[in-house]
């Protein structure tokens, strides 16, 4: 189990993942964070007021990829399951 930092970009609301240096649209670029480190990055990014709904979420590593534990987070990273044409990326949200 690892922690990933995620948030929504201010202007478009796009779901973003912390990649170690900045923010990426792809969960594939995300980095696992220690809780304390994650909390401090979260606090810093929150103060920047450019990323909303910041959260450290739990994820498992499955087949070499990050898989958020909660289905809500998986759907968040994918897009509306009923509109796969609007999906962000190839992700197994189930």
């Amino acid at each position: 189990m690892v922690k990933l930092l995620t948030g929504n970009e201010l202007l478009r609301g796009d779901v973003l993942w912390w990649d170690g240096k900045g923010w990426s649209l792809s969960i594939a670029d995300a980095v696992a964070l220690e809780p304390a480190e994650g909390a401090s990055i979260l606090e810093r990014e929150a103060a920047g007021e450019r990323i909303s709904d910041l959260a450290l979420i739990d994820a498992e590593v499955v087949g070499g990829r990050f898989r958020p534990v909660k289905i809500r987070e998986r759907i968040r990273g994918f897009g509306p399951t009923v509109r796969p044409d609007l999906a962000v990326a190839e992700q197994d949200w189930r």
Partner: protein
Amino acid sequence: MYQYDNIDQAVVDARVAEYRDQLERRLSGALDEDHFRPLRLKNGLYLQMHAYMLRVAIPYGTLSGQQMRMLGHVARRYDRGYGHFTTRQNIQYNWIRLHESADLLAELATVEMHAIQTSGNCIRNISSDQYAGAAVDEVEDPRPWAELLRQWSSFHPEFSYLPRKFKIAVIASDTDRAAMKLHDIGLQIVQRDGETGFRVYVGGGMGRTPIVAPVIREFLPAGDFLSYCEAILRVYNRYGRRDNIYKARIKILVHDLGAAEFARQVEEEHAHVKTLGLDAPEAEIARIRDFFAPPAFQTGLSDTLDRSDPDFALWPDFALWPDFALWVDRQVVAHKVPGYRIVNISLKPVGQIPGDASADQMDVLADLAERYSFDEIRVTHAQNLVLPHVRAADLKAVWEALNAAGLADANLDLATDIIACPGMDYCTLANARSIPVAQQLARLLAPRESELGELKIKVSGCINGCGHHHAGHIGILGVDRKGNENYQLLLGGSGAEDTSLAQILGPGFDEAGIVGAVERVTTAYLSLRADGERFLDTYRRLGAAPFKAAVYGAAVNGEAAHG
């Protein structure tokens, strides 16, 4: 329908300018998110799972063709080509970009539209009967009163920071097409000795604590309309709970005080505020009512839809057009004016997303409203649409246009006419996805739809109940069960005048399980029903027991309840 004067337009324009200023302060960093969030919510802009969602107000569900065309333009220009009509007669867009939101509101203002108070702890969109002005059974058109309330409630200085959101519905018939008794205030226009007044219900609602509103005042004279509402809101603002978000609606206050004591407090406050000159003069009611005067209906039109009438030359040979005939049977209802009909438009094609419409479809709808319905189209709280004033002679042409646009499903109030909230596919509040459940149920039940008859299925993705599951003949509530989606099955609700709250049947199910459970409920109904009974009637006659047995009794079935 109502048209803005310079005052209305100035107010909406000022609101856009105010929001633009607030947005600029947010983008420049002068305003932080904590302080900006309530401001954007007051303009209906939510940050959801994947993007910003904007909820545009459609006052009492009434639109002109021009406004519908603008909604299509917004979908194209500012969103991803579609919008979603909601259970409060509004429309939602799911992919709005924050930095374009002020421009979007400015465009809406050019056609007398806005997103004012579509979110936040304030008075929300006033809802009404989608057949207003056309219904055979209405006392008068309820919408002038809804418009009066809309104005009174807009930026009301005392009631903009209520304990919780506040929803009002106005109807004018004994038949309730607006789920009136499930609102914070429900108003039914009645006549007493030739005088127009209101029967006032307060304290209805769904969500965590569903309650059918009690009558607080049997007859309120029209002249006291605004001051009485003011009194209700003041009692609520002062005494509604603010310690617990789940106990903050007025229904809790009314329930805790008891209807009689609540009414007494309102009467006491009303005796005071009535003297303050809050009520609009009769001249203002008359001014607004003029906008809702009947359109120039043709007279002397033949009114029969009797297909066996050999003189009925207007009618196509129904035998040649079975789809059209079915659509007429199911979607078209009587109008108060001979020769006209009310046309229901389904936004529930089997397997599609309930309540969604594409920009192209909105253009078609705008054209149809202008050409065939005196430039009016309505949104219903069941996420469908209505053309209120269509000549019987034009029904075929309307159907052909709808059919070409994928809008001619004939399923009004049937098993595939399912209400579903956006659910966890879109909404951050949701615990489960609701749309896929609705889609699967629609596909499953479509072959038996005719046989099943009137069956209102309503799906909510969380306890907030935006899918109105408590008012469903069959209601489904999505919950979180140890991080997984789970669905509760409820039976026996109704949002019509025979208002009742659906009751939970037993333990919940996973996604496949709930679909199977509903199937067993419908099969049981078919085997148990007496002649002419709807599902709701059979349930009320027999109670939950036979359905419980049908759903859970076959416990050997491994796909059944998961505790």
